[in-house]
């Protein structure tokens, strides 16, 4: 498979004036300009139904924009769905191997990649478990590990932790930051949690609903890797406040 490897700060994903109109006439997205560069972790927050998931579906090629241009400079994409989307008849090991298997990677390579990914998300020892025997957080880790086997240059996350309890969500946020620091991928993350957005990202984009438009963009100044304690500082709270205000204004 040909792989376009981008240079250090290259733009991996570039949306320019993207519009999405569904066959029933609903305008889901309008005038979206957005870039994600290597080393950036961009989070999109917005009200439910504002088309943020559509944004990801267009980026991954699951949908085609009705107007505007979308350029993706790599074909190594990790896509993490809202739910873990594990195959219930496959063990953790075999679920993690799935994507490599679909690409026809030889067995030995697959095993090695899966082992590394399972280790990275801290699931070593659970390889033989079936998804039904795992907690929601562990399923999501398995899902992350599965995407990691592709060694993605850009990760697309569609509200992956939305269904998890607060404590599990915070832990997975920390894990994700660690993976981001270690693997140096680019991230485009969708969430409706403002504090999650600010904590994870280098840049937060606020969208308004119907049609989905970008109403504001905030650079997050905190250095990576981030100390979890940063969430309890005044600076952090201030930025969360600003983003929340922008979100609220966009909503009216």
């Amino acid at each position: 498979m040909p792989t376009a490897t981008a240079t250090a700060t290259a733009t991996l994903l570039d949306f320019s004036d993207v519009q999405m109109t569904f066959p029933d006439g609903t305008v889901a997205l309008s005038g979206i300009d957005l870039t994600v560069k290597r080393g950036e972790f961009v989070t999109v927050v917005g009200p439910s139904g504002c088309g943020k998931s559509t944004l990801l579906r267009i980026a991954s090629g699951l949908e085609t924009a009705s107007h505007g241009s979308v350029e993706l400079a790599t074909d190594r994409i990790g896509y993490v769905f809202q739910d873990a989307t594990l195959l219930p008849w496959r063990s953790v090991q075999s679920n993690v191997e799935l994507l490599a298997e679909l690409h026809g990677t030889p067995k030995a390579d697959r095993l090695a990649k899966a082992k590394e990914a399972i280790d990275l998300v801290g699931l070593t020892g659970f390889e033989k478990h079936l998804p039904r025997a795992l907690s929601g957080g562990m399923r999501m880790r398995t899902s992350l590990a599965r995407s990691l086997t592709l060694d993605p240059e850009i990760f697309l996350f569609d509200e992956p932790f939305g269904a998890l309890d607060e404590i599990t969500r915070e832990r997975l946020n920390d894990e994700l930051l660690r993976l981001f620091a270690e693997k140096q991928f680019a991230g485009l993350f969708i969430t409706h949690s403002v504090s999650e957005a600010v904590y994870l990202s280098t840049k937060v984009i606020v969208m308004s609903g119907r049609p989905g438009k970008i109403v504001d963009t905030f650079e997050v100044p905190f250095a990576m890797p981030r100390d979890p304690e940063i969430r309890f500082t005044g600076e952090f709270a201030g930025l969360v406040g600003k983003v929340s205000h922008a979100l609220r204004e966009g909503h009216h």
Partner: protein
Amino acid sequence: MADSPELVTRRRRGRPRVSTWAPPIALLALIVGIAYVANALLGKRAFLLPRPDQVFAVYVSPKNGPAIFESLLHTTEVALVGLAIAIALGVLWAIAMNTAKWVERTTLPYAIILQSIPILAVVPLIGFWFGYDFVARVIVCVLIALFPMTSNTLFGLQSVDRSHKELFRLQGASRWTVLTKLELPTALPAIFAGARISAGLSVVGAIVGDFFFQRGTPGIGALISKFGARLQSPELFASILVASLFGVVVYLFFQWLGRRAVGKWYDFG
């Protein structure tokens, strides 16, 4: 990693408890008791309901015992061949309908018609066309057992999650890969549920076939109609009982098979 993994304990099917098997056994004992009492009360007409020991004696009698078990064997043969064909046809038909929308649009109405026609009305025609032998008996089984296989498999194939499909699509998986690695595994519980129903129906089909097509080596159904016509009531009861037990065994076998195949990840009822 600080996460303390909380494992969800899996529900295990333990040994059946006394409270599970005792009540049906007690009911069986009661029915046997009632049969004795009724037999005594019937007096001259006691042939209508033979005593359970008379029925049991048929199985060990040198004349009818072997005949019953031999014809059960023939019925089994017909039912299993019919079932195998019904399963193969049903799964392939469902795959074809799931793969090509036009196949579904064209043939699904006929699957439903197949389900609604009174099969007994068609049986004479089957003899007329295919002879009154093994083949005709198998065809009756297939006609009766096919629909649940097709509809269950189709339902199973169509119940694949959208996100699972997208997961495969994002990797550029071929139609064949999606079928073998995603759709068929997802459909397995439904396929086994269909096979369990079809197996029972196939036994019905084989016995119906025996009633109508008595050339060659007909099975237990032929014996049942013979004993019924001759008013040999212990033999009649013995044959009916064996045929019923056979149906139960076939059902339980497919239940077991389904649990073996998918029970690890699916609560197969």
